[in-house]
């Protein structure tokens, strides 16, 4: 019985939910383990407990909820993995690939002129598809990068690879914001109709 004796450290979200530190997440295991932990510590189990127990269980449940939310989303997971490697994203470092910025501006412009198209919803769908496929590509790239980083700790390239992750993460943040905006527009259009 491997690992049963091992005290599971609670100092990172992966170990909290008994998952290996990795970019690839077994969604089924994540959900399963999350449910098991919540079943054991959720405040509802302590409705008759002392104030102290209730407070502790609220804190713990909040932490576990945060772990789930961080690990299930590729962007948040990437940022968290960077953090575990001692890299904090700063609002100031947004050096961007000019090509990427150019594409972004084009997409945003198209989005702002939606109303001038005959069928704005069709154009919007195209933009959303485009954004989604870019996000997918980025996820694949992040997957490869993290695999290299995590498989070989002694790798002298780690620093460089982490920098690459950082620039991809910044792009992903951009795309996520754009995606959110597209969806808001979609809602506005649906409301008008």
């Amino acid at each position, binding site marked *: 019985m491997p690992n049963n004796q091992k005290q599971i450290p609670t100092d990172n979200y992966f170990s909290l939910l008994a998952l290996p530190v990795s970019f690839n997440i077994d969604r089924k295991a994540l959900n399963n383990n999350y449910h098991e932990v919540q079943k054991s*510590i959720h405040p509802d189990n302590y409705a008759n*407990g002392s104030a102290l127990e209730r407070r502790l269980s609220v804190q713990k449940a909040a932490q576990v909820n945060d772990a789930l*939310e961080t690990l299930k989303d590729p962007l948040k997971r990437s940022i968290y993995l960077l953090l575990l490697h001692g890299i904090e994203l700063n609002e100031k470092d947004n050096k961007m690939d000019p090509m990427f910025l150019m594409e972004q501006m084009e997409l945003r412009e198209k989005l702002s002129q939606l109303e001038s198209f005959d069928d704005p919803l069709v154009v919007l769908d195209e933009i959303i598809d485009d954004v989604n496929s870019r996000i997918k590509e980025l996820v694949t790239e992040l997957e490869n990068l993290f695999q290299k980083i995590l498989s070989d700790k002694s790798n002298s390239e780690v620093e460089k690879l982490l920098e690459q992750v950082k620039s991809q993460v910044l792009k992903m943040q951009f795309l996520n914001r754009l995606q959110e905006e597209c969806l808001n527009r979609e809602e506005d259009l649906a409301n008008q109709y």
Partner: protein
Amino acid sequence: MALLQISEPGQSSAPHQHKLAVGIDLGTTNSLIATVRSGLAETIADENGQHLLPSVVQFLPDTLSDNENTYQTEVGHQAKTNAVNDPLNTIISVKRYMGRGLDDIAEHSVYRFIEEEGSVVPRIHTAAGNVSAVEVSAEILKKLKIQACNALGGELTGVVITVPAYFDDAQRQATKDAAKLAGLNVLRLINEPTAAAVAYGLDTGNEGIHVIYDLGGGTFDISILKLSKGIFEVLSTAGNTSLGGDDFDQVIAHWMMSEAQITDPDAALQRQVLDCARQAKENLSSQDCTSIHIELPADKNWHSELSLQQFEKMLNALVRKTLVSCRRALRDADIETSDIQDVVMVGGSTRVPLVRQMVGEFFSLEPLVNIDPDKVVAIGAARQADVLVGNKTDEDMLLLDITPLSLGLETMGGLTEKVIHRNTTIPVARAQEFTTFKDGQTAMAIHVVQGERELISDCRSLARFELRGIPPMVAGAARIRVTFQIDADGLLSVSAREETSGVESSIQVKPSFGLSDNEIETMLKDSFSHAQDDIDARKLREEQVEAKRVVEALNSALAEDAQKLLSTDEAAEIRQCIDELIQVAQGADQRAIKLKIEQVDKASAEFAQRRMDASINTALAGHSVDDIS
């Protein structure tokens, strides 16, 4: 080991005694109360065998009571009947006004709203005096409480009250305040669609993703839930707190008034027109056409027909509004309509055929209408109350709920910075860092808002407080960490801390349109005959109950885990503390008990922490991965 013996009125202190817990559906149009008896959840009828209590309160001129804060009221069926003749003193659909300011209250209300000095809560002028929406709701809750106590033969240990998922913090707090005034111990507020899903899910045992479409008298909610192995996980929710069957009535009423050329109706005529409209709507659920009569002054009566087709044309836009919310809920849950197992219709307004038809088309699924849409919410609430009060249940049920609206702060330029996004599972704690805008700035105003929009003015203001005593620094050098915490009840607290100096400030969010603690205290006091004595006695009793709870919890924890997790000395120290608490709790000194509880908490904090960690380890034993790299 000695067990603390404290008896509460009507309640035995024997362990595992079945405690009386109820669920309350405090609806816009009707309210219900339900409980679990020998494993079966059922609604409780009144002395006439009626389950539905109309949410209508008539305030009568005060003749008997010499106390200005106890009202003479008629609640329920009789009040509903009296409404036509006494429209201004009979409050209908009060739920629409809960937690609302004067500006929010729709202009077509028949009531006379007034502002009272020293209070932000609007009052309705009635024959019995000026009453707030909270007090009106409390009258409904009191009636339900009596109904339940009579039927169950005892005092209620706790209640779960349902609210629309889309209720904001102010509306939730107002509901809690009403319960407090009615003398109810609220275990939890839960969302109506969640309660419906619990009742439905436990009933059928169907695993998978369920959509609850809940269109009531005054509110609309859509919730998407996943049920797997006894866990109800709310994935997303959306809705509109001022859209419901009442609006259907309004649409018909408008049509009637313009057809009948009524331009300036008095309150009684307005009431008559609305009642006619409602009747017409109900008739059109089963007929293709209905006739309408209005009695106008001077015997100029008006008569007409309304066809189903005409009615549906009027409704179309309103129903479509609900579908926009459905689309958003799907998006937030990150699922497709094809992932959905079933769509459950809840709320009286889903009886309207057009609603069923349009919802069915939207989800490409025949919506389920076979459960009693009126009772299902109260029954789900009763189930959850039974769990929370600690009655042993066979099913192992856990509800993971979410916060329906985003919470954030005002930043420069009147913009909102979201700290907790909508549809985040609760409890949750999130922190965000801010900095100063000016050189030498020593204070920072924290403005907490709720809502999805970017502009502060479009969001609901929840609270304001200030962080003072920031050491003077250049602009942008201070690091102010603002932490939002939402507990399992969905209630928010916010704290701010300047990291370099450690200056702190925090607030338990009291909504801007809520009654102040003082106002509540005054209302409570006034409702007792011997105000101060009763309050002191109540406080002592509450503290004794908490002491009992602490002792019982710790004793059972020690029995389970003392050997595994504590040294002999540590265990002895905790036992010593428990014995002292038992001693003190037998006395009548409320403060001393409180202090002792704090001491016990301190002595056992480490033990509780170890137990929590051990419980996670046990939960994950066998799930853990072979090699954590």
